[in-house]
């Protein structure tokens, strides 16, 4: 079944936004999802989560996982857009280049998911960066480190939740770039030369951090005004 999907997907030569390729992509994304759907309060399993009309539901199946990735990429893209626009004091030329590059990568990721998901894409999320001091180097790079490590752990945890082999490969193409970012940010911020793959993120078996969607969304919500529900994601 996967093989057939893969072969069909390979036939796609579409040109981005123009529909054939996007429609094809969505066919494989599986279950339909209502954009920014309202989830009934009665469906909510977690009483601490106020799920209401403003809550964005990521959806279910592979589409849900792709929207989950899109949500994280939106968060990162918005963060780095502010970082490069506001430049913390004392930013060196090499730091500027690294941060400008990362901003481009995260913007490309977010734009890609939006185009690929098309009408199944979640809406633009409202962010809350009030906990970050954008004029302060340590605050900015500390937040960048959090976002990159979080992204790596999220993709690592999402892999087994995907049904499509093509989407798994796609997620793999992105997660290693997030890991490259994480290493670069850590080497900029931390004096410990081992920090790029420090013992705080790589365990005794040499394995990186892995987190489930609920764990990731719980950590991400600090930076999101929009409430995001992953209640229908596969687990």
């Amino acid at each position, binding site marked *: 079944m996967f093989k057939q999907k893969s072969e069909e997907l390979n036939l796609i030569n579409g040109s981005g936004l123009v529909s054939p390729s*996007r429609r094809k992509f969505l066919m494989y994304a599986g279950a339909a999802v209502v954009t920014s759907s309202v989830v009934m309060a009665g469906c909510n399993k977690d009483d601490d989560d106020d799920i209401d009309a403003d809550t964005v539901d990521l959806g279910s199946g592979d589409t849900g996982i792709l929207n989950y990735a899109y949500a994280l990429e939106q968060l990162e893209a918005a963060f780095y857009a502010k970082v490069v626009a506001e430049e913390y004091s004392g930013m060196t030329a090499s730091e500027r280049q690294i941060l400008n590059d990362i901003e481009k990568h995260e913007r490309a990721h977010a734009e890609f998911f939006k185009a690929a998901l098309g009408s199944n894409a979640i809406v633009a999320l409202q962010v809350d960066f009030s906990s970050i001091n954008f004029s302060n180097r340590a605050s900015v790079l500390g937040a960048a480190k959090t976002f990159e490590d979080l992204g790596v752990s999220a993709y690592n945890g999402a892999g087994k939740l995907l049904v499509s082999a093509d989407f798994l490969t796609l997620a793999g*193409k992105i997660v*290693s770039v997030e890991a490259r970012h994480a290493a670069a940010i850590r080497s900029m911020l931390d004096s410990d030369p*081992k920090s790029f793959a420090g013992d705080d993120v790589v365990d005794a078996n040499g394995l990186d951090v*892995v987190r489930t969607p609920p764990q990731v969304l719980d950590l991400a919500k600090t930076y999101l005004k929009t409430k995001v529900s992953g209640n229908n994601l596969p687990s």
Partner: protein
Amino acid sequence: MKLFNIINKLNFTDADEAKLHQKTSRRDMFNMMGGTAKAAAIASVPFALTMMASSKKLKAVNLAGPVEDVLNFALTLEYLESEFYIQGLDSGIIASGDQPVFMQISKHESAHVVFLANYIDSLGTTPVSKPNFDFTAGGTFNPFGDYQQFLALAQAFEDTGVRAYKGGAAGLMSNDVALTAALQIHSVEARHAAEVRRIRGLKGWITQNQRGAGMPAQTQGVYDGEENLTQGGVNVSSISSVGSDGITEAFDEPLESQAVLNIANLFIVP
């Protein structure tokens, strides 16, 4: 589960026997073929991999599965990386300021070897044994006498590892534990790659198909294909406000198994 493993193992052994009885190794056969025949042969077996058997002859397996084969292929790459850093640290060639970095990387690669070997064993399959390595590639390189060459090969191995795990992930989808562990190793390899590239004065990410300043031409195969702009059927350059350099940096590409072999086999000796 156990029964399937045994069946897979038997099939694997049958195919293996045939290879072992060949007078000529697979690599020699490829080298003797003309360009067209070689391309056709590669196209007909896109996932064929050549690995060291205990006899030290080369054999082919399928990267699309079974899981044990994919993991044994990964283990071979981890042996290569692990041995490279052990020898590098022993050689005294590593600049003192960079030693903590390479001790950390070495620790991880050795942990990957142990982890994968144990996990393969737990599936009821015998892990491949460690091949013999020649990191001079027959005298072409001098990584333990020239630090810049050590760094260049380290970059090539790490960037290869990132691409190889990406290529093998789909073949692990039937086993969530193996898939997740492979992804966790994959991102650690990417962290290593970024750090080695930083030490070499490069960006942590790959622009277009550029191997980067100072990288030997023999490593170009590690970077070919990284210039891809089409993801999931979407031509990203047509929908993104980011230029093509940035788009290629933003997506790492899997490496075809044959290309992984072309790199690894430079350093594996009978």
